[in-house]
């Protein structure tokens, strides 16, 4: 070894310290900055019992990790600087090992890991409980690139409520999500993953399988989420939102959704209804339109105008956006499956369709 000139160590000590501090600070910010207006998808800001179980685990694991981090990095830095070569040429004592130490540093990590494993396994089992008696069951299908939610009713399939991208739930009640990849009427495409960070972790939608998970919200509010498994061109544009209502309000919403919209159909709106009845019902269901065959290839439009946003929940439901969308969907959402109608319909006809859609409340 050619003896190296010893260097000042000041600069090297603070870099990792600062970096460590930055991480702690950042995580702290993430954990505490639970203002939903600013961080609507903060996984460390649980808004329901399921997400809280998962967050509790983080509250155990994270401090342990920080403790080990500080300890080990401290050891590294101490060893590196305390014993660095000072150019005085003294060779270190040659020792090949210390069995007692080596056994010790095998056993201690094992104990720490056991400390993590116990709450982990307990939480796994708690989360796997069967759904509560009164759970609301919602069938979820992920499609390129939007989400379909079906509320099954026991009496008549015609009474089922089908929505897109907006999942309405009652507060204080468990919601059992069935990710149905076993050939629902609407067909299956690729793998997606259902994720509402503030309500629960994610579960994949897998073609050929049915996967289940539970979500629940304590307070009324809006909880955004998005597809978490890469599913193609517009994976980034496959969003959704859970809207939690007071139970009474939810029942009202549900009853309203089960009925067709009572639109006044005349003039321009009648023209729009006619076009929709001819051109759109091949893919979309619109309960209340005579020609609608209940096809579920594309989003159910029965109460379309009540939805805040559309197109994978990326566009506000405004007349301008709707017009642009119908004209050329791929321009707004690359890879969207809906054909462009800019060629086959005149601008006035599209206006009429938009006017009709906006009455579907």
């Amino acid at each position: 070894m050619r003896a190296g000139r010893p260097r000042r160590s000041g600069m090297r000590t603070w870099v990792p310290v600062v970096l460590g501090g930055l991480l702690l600070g950042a995580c702290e910010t993430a954990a505490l900055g639970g203002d939903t207006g600013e961080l609507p998808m903060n996984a460390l800001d649980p808004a329901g019992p399921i997400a809280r179980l998962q967050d509790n685990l983080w509250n155990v694991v994270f401090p342990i990790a920080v403790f080990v981090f500080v300890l080990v990095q401290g050891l590294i830095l101490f060893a590196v600087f305390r014993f660095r070569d000072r150019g005085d040429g003294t060779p270190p004592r040659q020792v090949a090992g210390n069995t007692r130490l080596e056994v010790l540093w095998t056993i201690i990590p094992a104990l720490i890991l056991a400390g993590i494993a116990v709450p982990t396994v307990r939480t796994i089992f708690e989360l796997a409980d069967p759904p509560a008696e009164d759970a609301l069951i919602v069938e979820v299908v992920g499609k390129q690139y939007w989400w379909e939610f079906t509320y099954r009713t026991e009496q008549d399939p015609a009474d089922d409520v089908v929505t897109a991208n907006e999942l309405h739930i009652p507060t204080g009640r468990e919601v059992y999500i069935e990710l149905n990849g076993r050939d629902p009427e609407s067909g299956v495409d690729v793998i997606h993953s259902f994720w509402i960070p503030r309500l629960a972790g994610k579960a994949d939608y897998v073609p050929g399988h049915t996967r289940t998970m539970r979500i629940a919200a304590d307070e009324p509010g809006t909880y955004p989420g998005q597809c978490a498994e890469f599913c193609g061109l517009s994976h980034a544009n496959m969003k959704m939102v859970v809207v939690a209502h007071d139970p009474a309000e939810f029942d009202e919403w549900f009853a309203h959704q089960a009925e067709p919209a009572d639109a006044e159909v005349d003039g321009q709106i009648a023209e729009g209804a006619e076009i929709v009845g001819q051109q759109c019902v091949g893919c979309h269901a619109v309960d209340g339109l005579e020609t609608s065959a209940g096809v579920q290839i594309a989003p159910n439009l029965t109460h379309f105008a009540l939805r805040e946003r559309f197109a994978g929940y990326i566009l506000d439901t405004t007349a301008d956006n709707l017009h642009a969308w119908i004209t050329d969907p791929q321009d707004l959402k690359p890879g969207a499956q809906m054909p462009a109608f800019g060629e086959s319909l005149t601008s006035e006809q599209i206006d009429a369709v938009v006017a009709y859609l906006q009455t579907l409340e």
Partner: protein
Amino acid sequence: MTTVTGDRLEDVWATRPGLVGWLGAVNHKQVGQRFIATAFVFFLVGGVQSLFMRYQLGSPESTFLDPETYNQLFTMHGTTMMFLFAVPIGEAFGIYFVPLMLGARDMPFPRLNAFGYWAYLFGGIFLYSSFLAGSVPDSGWYAYPPLSGPEYSPRSNLDFWLLGVTFVEVSGVIAAFEIVVLILRFRAPGMAISRMPLFVWSLLVTATMILVAFPPLIMGTVLLELDRKVGTGFYDPAVGGDPMLWQHIFWWFGHPEVYIILLPAIGIVSAILPVFTRTRIVGYTFIAAATVAIGILSFGVWVHHMFTTGINLLGLTFFTAGSLLITIPGGVQIFAFIATLWRGRPVFKPPLLHVIGFLVVFVFGGLSGVMVASVPFDWQAHDTYFVVAHFHYVLIGGVLFPVLAGLTYWLPKMTGRLLDDRLGTVAFWLLFAGFNLTFLPQHVVGLLGMPRRVYTYPSGIGWDVYNLLSTVGAFVVAAGMAVFVADVVRSRWRGAPAGDDPWGGNTLEWATTSPPEPFNFRVIPIATTRDPLWDERPLDLAGGPAWRRELAHPVVSRREMVSTSVLDAAPHEVLTLPIHSLWPLGLAAALGVFLIGVMVDRTSIGLVGLAGLAVCVIGWLWSRQDEP
């Protein structure tokens, strides 16, 4: 042979002159050097792709890249880094340095070794030719069906991926096969298995893992290609197949893969630490045992990539336990390294700086790994930027820093020139700072809900600033890499001569010239301890049994090497190695032609390739292998 020096040993090991000689070279140092250089070029290409992505994500709703290009870039970035850089670079170091460390003269099957390189190179070119064809793979480096299947990826982009990756995997299996034989049968006499350098231990375990992990993936990719070309439907639920089958096959390979690329890096660290702390490594036996333990346990963790796919309770608990368990041997190694630093006198030269960078960053990645091993938390973190940050801490910390440490440590041996300490130090600090700036914020933005593989994100939900920091960091990393590359290029012409042993090394590669002669050692060294150069300086290069003198001054013009027994490395027999051959290149080219035929659905091209394969195999086996 045009240059005759009069020394039979030099003459028989010399490479033939000219282009034909270059193409037909089979010596492990030439093959290893090409492997290292090619892998490094692919690394730089993959790195540039990440800069494009980071620039896109530097601001919300950026229109710098369209989604199609973005998806292609992250697919090729992952594919390049995993298949074309991380695995080959580990094997490349093995191919170049394990024979030197073992006192061997070459790999046991030099022609196969050369074929492995050509298969790797052609596989990489095959993958990248998709850019010329305008049909770049875009289903992620893991290519999950149905998205990668015939219905949702009808163009040829996934064919490029499947065939190219298979080509490269074949190369990986071949190199692994050779490394195992080399280590078990061609160690210096006296180098009992308990005296092997830890770097050699890590390569032995790695190569064994490759032999278990890669063939199933080759099978898996062939099945998916059949789904695409023939309509078999192995992964198609509509006809009784199952997309989960692919995920199990892929991660059966994919998680051991992480340790396959990590263990050689751990080996590099184990090689450098004693030299730069001037003390013997602490806990040799524990480190070697931990390496073997990691090799075994790594096959019991693959499902942790699939925790969100609906795994039953037993599976979840088992694979959580496995994932937690594997951190124990990892921790054993880290603590042994820290103890070595503690016992020694660390000398701050670039190789050691990179090793310290490895320790600091890798420990961080290990801790976030423990977090995601905890299933219920993983359900939140999975497929978010938290995981992206986690595995970059593991892979850049665990692979890139050690690889750079290894390059700064061993490049003087390969070229005979030293790198510049100051440039090396600057490069390290830029990389270290830039790396943390890039990936630290990604933990946070992941917890704030940002999923992976999104080409854009909206403003106003708290993600902007972290993404901007990350992008700035990526460009700092790029600056660090530029300095590193400049240092390497500079040393080629202006580097100080390295001499045989610039660092005061402990292992046998420092006992020969820099760069080494084609035959590595005129006199086969005899190793009696773990640190032969520290314990017996100078090495005993005279005397010994008669075969030793005969190998040093051969009486026949043959490339000869001594094989030894598996455990004690007792001399067994003198073997003759094959020389220069163009058949490996021909075989790889024929295989490439066949794959192109499959790719473009032309039976005629495929048949030409198959015919070429047959000709090359026959030619290879028929040709005299042992005489010039």
